[in-house]
């Protein structure tokens, strides 16, 4: 039996700009419960005349951080809720939320590894919850993140990712840049393709659990590639956002 998810009023306790287009909001919850890394929360906004709208955002924080959740929100051009969160909300504001929601695109150390995380753009957010959880548990499960961004300034959590990779020899973070790479960059400078997948996945072996999150076209192409490489469907979990692009 699943618990009933009630709406609750969270307090915004911190806001951090991650990139020009993304901000992280720390919310203190009166009825906090531990989420599974990868789950999301619903946010509901209400206008004075009673008009309401809702959106879902992935939790970026780890469940070991008790009492609060962090949501990282990308500003969508013309986004009704994301532009409100970016332009209006300040520390001390209240937000109506409920969660955690979603029980498939989730990973915890009890599931084991090796773990292959593949993210595009803000698709890295639920993957970050998994990495932070893994780190908080001092897990040594072999883990790799392949993270596709358009430009260096679009990389969310850059410093934290560098720090995690530096201190943990069982974790590797591999970046690829699709529009513009940093000066002197010797790594990947293209969209994720089959060759890149087999390079990156190779060291983890054929038994890896794979989580792919990002824009639809990236997820479709990566998931198709993984299936062609012989990974069992059941070990590939996906979360897509945005239009089909067709």
């Amino acid at each position, binding site marked *: 039996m699943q618990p009933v*998810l009630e709406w609750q009023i969270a307090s915004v306790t911190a806001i951090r700009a991650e990139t020009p287009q993304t901000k992280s909001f720390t919310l203190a919850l009166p009825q906090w419960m531990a989420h599974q890394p990868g789950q999301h929360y619903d946010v509901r906004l209400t206008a*004075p005349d009673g008009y309401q709208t809702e959106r879902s955002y992935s939790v970026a924080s780890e469940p070991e951080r008790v009492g609060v959740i962090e949501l990282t929100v990308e500003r969508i051009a013309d986004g009704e809720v994301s532009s409100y969160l970016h332009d*209006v909300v300040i520390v001390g*504001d*209240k937000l109506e939320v409920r969660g955690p929601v979603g029980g498939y695109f989730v990973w915890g150390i009890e599931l084991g590894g090796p773990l292959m995380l593949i993210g595009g753009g803000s698709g890295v957010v639920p993957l970050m919850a998994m990495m932070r959880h893994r780190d908080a548990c001092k897990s040594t499960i072999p883990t790799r993140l392949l993270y596709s961004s358009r430009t260096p300034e679009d990389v969310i959590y850059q410093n934290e990712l560098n720090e995690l990779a530096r201190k943990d020899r069982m974790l590797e973070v591999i970046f690829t840049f699709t529009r513009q790479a940093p000066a002197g960059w010797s790594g990947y400078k293209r969209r994720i393709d089959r060759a890149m997948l087999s390079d990156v996945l190779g060291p983890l072996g054929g038994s890896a659990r794979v989580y792919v999150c990002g824009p639809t076209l990236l997820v479709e192409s990566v998931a198709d590639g993984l299936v062609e490489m012989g990974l069992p469907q059941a070990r*590939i979990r996906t979360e897509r956002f945005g*239009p089909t692009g067709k």
Partner: protein
Amino acid sequence: MISRGFSGRRRPADVEKRLPPGQYLTTDFPVLSAGPTPHTPLDKWTFILEGLVQSPKRWTWEEFQKLPTQTFTVDISCVTKWTKLDMKWRGVTVDALLEAVQLLPNAQFVMAFSNGGYTTNIPLDELVKGQAFIAYEYDDKELAPEHGGPARLVVPHLYFWKSAKWIRGLRFMERNEPGFWEALGYHIHGDPWKEERYSGD
């Protein structure tokens, strides 16, 4: 609770009244799936009615194409909050399929099942009388794999996870049983107008 400084984006009243609570209007066709998109060759595709029926009925793709089709223009709401208006499908009603079998009197619920292992449950009386169909065309084109092609169930009056992609059959049951998302915290029924998103709503 009123959200400080939020006025919201209003749509014309005729659009607004077609949006279930908490939903927003989209003109895209977003894709949501839990895993890779299956690609079934049409000569390997079959569709079956099974479970509480006198004898099961199976169609090949070629046979299925000979069933009478209708076009349906319907509004669709996804539990992830988007609603898309006037989506135009072509397909076969569940009523037309049921003409090929004799249901047993204790058949009350249906488990739709798909290539890739996806399942979702729906009460039988919500699939009949033109309420649901198996679609293989969207917007006058064959249904794309990422949208559930070659064929998907469409149950417009329930959240879109009930409209199983890559559908391969319906199993008739006496008791209601949770499908894939229903066992993972989503509502057993899923009516957008009652905002039945999650278990217990």
